[in-house]
């Protein structure tokens, strides 16, 4: 079968909603797009542990501490599901991780913003996990089987992430004026970066059209962003928080909220490595790998020694 015939058959499978599995023939570009997208997603889960992990020892009470620990542990698990999914595409796990550490691979730019106060932790759960869930629910039907299965598992686990954040904010918003102000300040800092999580606008998104055709993505960046805004406005009202956008307004004709243009300069600056925490985040990941090397070596040596005893 020629390459062109295989591509036609591949697209027919996609159109008939047949999932693609690891050993199936796939166009090289489909494979490369998935490697890029899933590894970015995996890195985001892992780097996403850093801003929250930093608050585990400072959680205001034992309940919040246990919840935060469970959430951070979930993120590690989600990273692993996704690293396993990337590996089914023929990449090496180590190379995937090294690509993050060398700066070649990206992760969600949201994690390059610092978590300055306790209210940021609630806000990250509500807005950042909320935006992630909006994106991930859509990805449960992505055309690549291992990615879709990882997404189903992740979505099941993540719904508590958003709810615990929102619950934490309800306490702050019904607390002292200082607590309420702290929540509003967190909202002011995280609203726009959360909207940026959906990626560049459709007009500027290089990979969007082909990804939709291959059903890697089911919705465009702008569609998902709009859904997120529409879902979040009422949630903010219940908290009594103001969304920091003077142009946010219900548009009866569109049936959606209108909102201001995103500051795309800021978005691209952070993507390119110039956000408030880019260097710190990468340094933390590299340090973790280097300082954990002896543990991995010891585990391998122990396994080898035991095998030798068994065969002796």
């Amino acid at each position: 079968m020629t390459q062109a015939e295989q591509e036609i058959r591949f697209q027919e499978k996609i159109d008939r909603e047949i999932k693609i599995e690891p050993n199936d023939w796939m166009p090289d570009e489909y494979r490369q797009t998935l490697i890029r997208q899933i590894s970015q997603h995996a890195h985001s889960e892992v780097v996403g542990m850093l801003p929250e992990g930093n608050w585990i020892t400072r959680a205001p009470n034992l309940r919040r501490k246990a919840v935060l620990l469970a959430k951070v542990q979930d993120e590690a698990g989600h990273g692993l599901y996704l690293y396993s999914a990337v590996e089914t595409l023929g990449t090496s796990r180590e190379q995937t991780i090294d690509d993050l550490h060398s700066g070649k691979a990206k992760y969600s730019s949201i994690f390059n913003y610092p978590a300055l106060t306790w209210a940021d932790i609630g806000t990250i759960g509500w807005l950042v996990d909320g935006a992630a869930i909006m994106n991930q629910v859509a990805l449960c039907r992505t055309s690549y089987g291992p990615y879709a299965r990882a997404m189903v598992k992740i979505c099941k686990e993540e719904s508590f992430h958003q709810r615990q954040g929102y619950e934490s904010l309800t306490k702050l918003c019904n607390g002292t004026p200082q607590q309420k102000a702290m929540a509003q300040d967190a909202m002011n800092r995280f609203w726009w970066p959360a909207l940026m999580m959906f990626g560049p606008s459709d007009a500027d998104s290089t990979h969007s059209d082909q990804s939709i055709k291959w059903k890697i993505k089911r919705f465009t960046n702008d569609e998902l962003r709009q859904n997120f805004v529409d879902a979040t406005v009422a949630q903010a009202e219940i908290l009594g928080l103001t969304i920091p956008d003077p142009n946010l307004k219900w548009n009866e004709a569109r049936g959606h909220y209108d909102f201001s243009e995103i500051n795309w300069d800021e978005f691209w600056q952070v993507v390119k490595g110039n956000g408030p925490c880019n260097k710190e985040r990468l340094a933390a990941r590299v340090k973790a790998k280097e300082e954990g090397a002896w543990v991995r070596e010891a585990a391998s040596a122990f396994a080898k020694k035991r095998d030798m005893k068994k065969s002796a």
Partner: protein
Amino acid sequence: MSTNEWPLWEVFIRSKQGLNHKHVGSLRAPDATLALENARDVYTRRSEGISIWVVESAHIHATDIDDVASFFEPSDTKIYRHPTFYEVPDGVKHM
């Protein structure tokens, strides 16, 4: 030495008595003991299982993807193996 040298393990979980072990994913670990412990931490954080199997991926033999049509041909051409192939008069019950 790198994690790359750790073998890949496939993880199978029995969610409750009476059901079979089902493939849930994979992970890397230096040996079976750690593979089981990692599988517990990664795949059963919410009471998803009461028993875990781990199998080194290298030990799994699979059908050849390019040979699927001929390999499964015998099962696709014998419709008389299905009960709906047979005609039974109206009114016949418990069959």
